[in-house]
């Protein structure tokens, strides 16, 4: 039977994002080893010490095997950083055998020193392990070893140094980008898992607990007396639990924005009604936090001055160039002049702190109050075209 195998491969392995780079380093090392052995064989008869050259090449081969063991697979994953540093030391050491093996005449004729391009692999390894600083520092070490070993700094050497620096920078940057991308993917996956779990819980709770709580709330209210109090408690818990289950929408997203509608909906209770659009009203998270605080202050004020059970209504509206929030109650209204009076007496009234917060956001706070009208605070925050993201 034909069955499609599940696909697990993604562009970036989230847990081990640098694996492709490490594999590349090993491949590079093996290919350059073969090249260096070939070039050295060509120069072998002219070397001051062909036996020494053979010994160094054997050492390079053995070290390449060690690196392959360390850089591939999971066995030594945690020790790759120190291994890359050891690699740097070994590579520089191999370069420093040059004066013992390669004659001055050979060097003058542009023959490579010992190790040659194979040693640049150490720069790549350090760049993968320690990003841009690692790559650049390792390039500096290998460049110094190059100049010391060959005891000259002609255009050829300067050219090599330039390429080493460039390689260190580029691979270091690639390492940085891969890590960041993996971190982002990991976070997105975690968020999705959390959302899926919340949804699963929400379904389970909806089918059981919430229904029973809502039912108890209703029956309690009908029975009256002590049962009514129990019913009211059950009703409050129902709203609280439901809000908890749906409050995932009020999280700050990757761009530092937060849904004002979902945030303020969390304030809904038996006495507070929150009206808002069905789509997210996204604003910078800091702005949303301030607005949340202002609305809470206004609601606390209703509770203090109108009554603990006094109903209040919050309306969130997206206008063309502003977001407007209204907090209203049906109380007796605030007598004219009382707010100003409170401020004059040095009592930092609600209005002062609310006005301060709204002012800091570049918005305005208006008060509409009077006997038979209740009290309505209107908070208006201008929203530039760059601030609001169109919801699709």
């Amino acid at each position: 039977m034909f069955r499609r195998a599940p696909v697990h491969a993604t562009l970036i392995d989230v847990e081990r994002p640098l694996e492709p780079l490490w594999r590349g380093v090993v491949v590079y090392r093996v290919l350059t080893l073969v090249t260096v052995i070939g070039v050295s064989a060509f120069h072998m008869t002219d070397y001051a010490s062909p036996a020494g050259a053979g010994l160094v090449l054997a050492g390079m081969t053995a070290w390449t095997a060690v690196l392959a063991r360390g850089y591939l697979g999971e066995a030594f994953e945690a020790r790759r950083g120190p291994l890359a540093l050891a690699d740097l030391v070994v590579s520089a050491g191999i370069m420093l055998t040059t004066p013992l093996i390669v004659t001055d005449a050979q060097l003058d004729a542009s023959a490579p020193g010992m190790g040659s391009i194979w040693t640049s692999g150490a720069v790549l390894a350090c760049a993968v392990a320690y990003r841009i600083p690692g790559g650049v520092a390792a390039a500096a070490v290998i460049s110094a070893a190059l100049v010391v070993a060959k005891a000259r700094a002609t255009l050829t050497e300067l050219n090599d140094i330039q390429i080493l620096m460039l390689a260190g920078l580029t691979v270091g940057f690639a390492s940085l980008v891969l890590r960041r991308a993996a971190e982002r993917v990991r976070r997105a996956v975690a968020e999705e898992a959390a959302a899926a779990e919340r949804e699963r819980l929400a379904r389970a709770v909806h089918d059981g607990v919430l229904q029973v709580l809502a039912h108890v709330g209703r029956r309690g209210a009908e029975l009256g007396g002590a049962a009514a109090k129990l019913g009211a408690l059950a009703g409050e818990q129902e709203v609280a639990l439901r809000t908890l289950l749906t409050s995932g929408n009020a999280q700050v997203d990757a761009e530092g924005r937060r849904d004002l509608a979902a945030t303020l909906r969390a304030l809904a209770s038996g006495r507070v009604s929150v009206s808002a659009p069905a789509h997210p009203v996204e604003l910078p998270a800091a702005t949303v936090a301030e607005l949340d605080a202002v609305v809470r202050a206004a609601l606390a004020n209703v509770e203090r001055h109108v009554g603990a059970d006094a109903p209040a209504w919050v309306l969130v509206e997206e206008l063309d160039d502003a977001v407007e929030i209204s907090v209203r109650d049906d109380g007796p209204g605030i007598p004219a002049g009382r707010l100003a009076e409170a401020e004059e007496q040095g009592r930092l009234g609600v209005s002062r702190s609310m006005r301060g917060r709204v002012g800091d956001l570049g918005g305005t706070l208006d008060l509409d109050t009077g006997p038979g009208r209740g009290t309505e605070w209107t908070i208006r925050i201008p929203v530039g075209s760059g601030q609001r993201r169109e919801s699709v």
Partner: protein
Amino acid sequence: MTVTVMVVDDHPIWREGVARDLGERGLEVVATAPDAGAAVRIAPAVRPQVVLMDLNLGETSGVDAIAGIVEKLPDTRVLVLSASGEHADVLEALKAGATGYLVKSASAEELVDAVRRTAAGVPVFTPGLAGLVLGEYRRLAQRPAGEPAVPALTERETEVLRLVAKGLTAKQIGERLVLSHRTVESHVQNTLRKLQLHNRSQLVRYAIEQGLAND
């Protein structure tokens, strides 16, 4: 005349509780259904005046059931009785043809009153619902130009809807705007009707685009 009601909810305790509450207060519960499929099958047989519809019906959606019922029974009104926290669903339900929305925490008296008003053709608007409808009109207005005409609210309708969203009763709104409460209710009804018409025309347009309307 007794108002006939069908109760659609996936939870048996709740379904039976609501049916009994309505029955005790002089309404006639002619049927109950646990999911969208059953609701659409049963409704044409019993032809209730009002369908009391939960939106979260286990694996099925109340919104689909509303569309099915409204299509088969144009005289039947649908009142959504749902939990808070299902804002997008409530909006979809309204666009599909529901004429009111009540939260499950409402008392039995409020529920019976809402059912009677729904049967009489008066929309049942909570402040939360008004906020959703206002938001939807704003969203439609922000759509890029070039799209076929989207419905818009008149200034008066916007004013009325905002006051509903701020918790004022039809009577309070009437006093503030110097209107009769019937006029207020008809403004509210209009905002809903325009949204439903737009939804239907969009569905038809979609069907034509997809070549479904050729047969």
